[in-house]
């Protein structure tokens, strides 16, 4: 296989990892006001993702860095072209990340409520916007002969891409609910499971329309197969949630997202950012790529270190494998006060 193809696949893997992992912590963030009706429940939800959300988010940074290194033209055109959506995503990720760390640092209901809002919107916005962005990438955007995006902001808000945004929103919401059902105990667990079943069906409906649309527009045999498998995984996951098998249910949405994202990349190949202009030039794995030497170096680094990363990230999930419920949440030990008797 050519190195440019290898790197196309590796970047696909990084986005698959990002969406399959951060997808559920976006989902948990969005479910905060839904499943967390009182403070302890909200803390249960946040603590299910507490040790892992930051590691999940690194996948997007590495995806960005790898795109920069392996396909500089892609990185340059995509990031300068999708300027305002990316700015929104940045703002969302900033307030969300700070919110997780700072929320519990003051014993003040108004303070916590503000950070809860930051977590909710900071999870919801990227969940939608990443879908819109990928919809646009797959569908093609106005790129001129100098490989420069010339479409402006509102061009990105077309029906197909917006449907993509709705698809990722519902998939991540379901994925998050599956995760909560798997990682908690008590009433939250039951509610999460039943919510996952319902949102899973809605997600399936929307996702099928989006994926069929994609397949008709730009699909290949490989993308078609991956999309069918994604749909099957989603239905299996929802069914498993319905029958109380939470591990299988979570695996189902995990695979759904992974397969669907892989399918989008398959539909894209060998373009990386097709143009919608008749006289424009599409960015491809060839004309956007770095030199063979850079790709070779990067391949060596990726081959050695990616497995190591997978092992220790996997180990983290093993360390924090136990379910959490409200009685596991300690009293908040907050600034200026300590629980009675601890002195």
């Amino acid at each position, binding site marked *: 296989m050519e190195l440019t193809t290898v790197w196309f696949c590796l970047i696909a893997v990084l986005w698959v990892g990002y969406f399959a992992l951060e997808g559920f912590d976006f989902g948990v963030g969005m479910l905060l006001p839904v499943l967390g009706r009182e403070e302890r429940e909200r*803390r249960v939800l946040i*603590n299910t993702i*507490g*040790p892992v959300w*930051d*590691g999940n*988010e*690194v996948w997007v*940074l*590495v995806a960005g*860095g*790898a*795109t*920069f*290194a*392996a396909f*500089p*033209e892609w*990185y*340059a*055109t*995509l*990031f*300068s072209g999708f*300027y*305002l959506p*990316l*700015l929104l995503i*940045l*703002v969302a*990720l*900033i307030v969300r*990340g*700070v919110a*997780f*760390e*700072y*929320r519990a*640092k*003051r014993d003040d209901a108004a303070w916590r409520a503000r950070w809860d809002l930051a977590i909710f919107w900071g999870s919801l916005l990227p969940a939608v916007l990443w879908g819109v962005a990928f919809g646009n990438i797959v569908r093609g955007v106005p790129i001129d002969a*100098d490989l420069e*995006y*010339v479409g402006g902001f509102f061009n990105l808000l077309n029906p197909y891409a917006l449907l993509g945004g709705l698809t990722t929103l519902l998939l991540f919401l379901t994925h998050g609910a599956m995760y909560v059902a798997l990682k908690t105990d008590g009433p939250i667990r039951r509610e999460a499971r039943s919510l996952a079943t319902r949102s899973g069906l809605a997600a399936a409906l929307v996702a099928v329309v989006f994926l069929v649309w994609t397949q008709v527009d730009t699909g290949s045999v490989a993308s078609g197969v991956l999309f069918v498998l994604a749909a099957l995984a989603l239905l299996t996951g929802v069914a498993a949630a319905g029958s109380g098998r939470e591990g299988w249910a979570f695996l189902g949405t995990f695979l759904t997202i992974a397969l669907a994202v892989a399918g989008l990349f398959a539909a894209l190949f060998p373009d990386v950012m097709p143009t919608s202009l008749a006289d424009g030039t599409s960015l491809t794995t060839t004309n956007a790529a*770095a*030199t063979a*030497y*850079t790709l070779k170096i990067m391949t060596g*680094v990726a081959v050695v*270190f990616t497995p190591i*990363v997978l092992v*220790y990230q996997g180990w*983290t999930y093993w*360390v*924090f494998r136990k379910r959490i419920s409200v*009685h*596991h*949440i*300690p009293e908040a030990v907050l*600034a200026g006060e300590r629980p009675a008797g601890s*002195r």
Partner: protein
Amino acid sequence: MDLEALDIARWQFAITTVYHFLFVPITIGLSALVAGYQTAWLRTGNEQWLRMTKFLGKLFLINFALGVVTGIVQEFQFGMNWSDYSRFVGDVFGAPLAVEGLLAFFLESTFLGLWIFGWDRLPRALHASCMWLVHLGTLFSAYFILAANSFMQNPVGYDYNAETGRAELTDFVAVLTNKVQLVTFPHVILAAYMTAGAFVAGVALWHLVRGKGREGSEDRSMYRSGARVGAWVLLVAGLGVVISGDVQGKVMTEVQPMKMAAAEALYETEEPAAFSIFTIGTPDGTSEKFSVTIPNLLSFLATGELDGRVEGINPLREQYIETYGQDPGATYYTAGDYTPYIPLTYWSFRFMMGLGFAGMAGGLAVLWATRRGRAPTGGRWTWVAVGLPLMPLFANSFGWIFTEIGRQPWVVFGLMTTEQGVSPGTTTGEVLTSLVVLTALYGVLAAVELKLMLTYIAKGADPYVEPQLRDDDNDPDRPLAFAY
């Protein structure tokens, strides 16, 4: 893209990068100090070390949160605002960035998660080693991002491909062992230790004079020891910063002579050259009302010899125009004013050194005041406690402002100017929106962070609690040792 958008993009880069780098040195240095305290506790069983570990660990996390989220902006804005730069250097510059993500960011984030939540999940030695791995991650991160920056200061290991119009990597090892990188890395890392040392010394000193370690309180010895540990780290690292900075000055004179001339606002070549501590008047060399100078010092800083020759701005500018104005790769070169903005290079260089030395003097004062069992009380020491952490912190900022402004008008020295690197298709409105939104957000977050930091500093170290591993079989309902 018009000039206005270029200026806004430059302001955004300056603001977001200087802001990001307020958190980075503390993250690098404090992760080592927290891990060090935790290891000391493991080795000796002394409860004070564990209390300090947890106390400093909380302050570390408040700082780390902002370091992480502002780092995402850095990763994105090369492509957003500087897409032509990204196209031009992506083949060389992208590789260290990608490696940084894979080697460093995963390590930091994953093991920090394990450290924060793992007190009752991991055996003690394994738990402490998580913080050491976080520290290792910060070192990797610094190494690769500084290698990328060193390429911008002194491009090596590449070929200019006229056909594609970009710089292409030919030797990755050369990029990683760039002579600028080999002196910059120790300089930056030691400055980070210095900053963290000053932070710990300042916090502990504050408790001695105003907080939980005042005369007669039980914890006085713990905070006294903290002040001394911090001051020693500050001083030893500071010495390393001075030495590495000295070597760096000579490398800089060799590869970017204009930057050294701009650091002194030296318009004409001198042999030997004096160093001015400060100048009143216009620093453009035309009128100088008053200045305090040390003879021969600039010669020594630049060349290592007391009577060495230091090239001035004017002859260098002639040289640069000759070299770069007529280069065959003219698509990327424009002849012009090769002089950086002199007042900023002149003063940022002095503030960097002045604040660094002032921080070291503060460290010495703390060691003196805490000698042989003594500890200071009240009065002026409060100001030392407050001022001490700020000095190396802002010295870092001025160091970066100096090194980046001193490279102008280049973004990659000798290859591409900053003006050529900006995104051609991005509108002024977009960049302005981004600048306003990020600056406002950063301002609010700074206020929140500072308030939390001060609250938690004032709260001091919690009482000792013996960490215990969870026993899920016998006591599955025991509350978590730590939860958000």
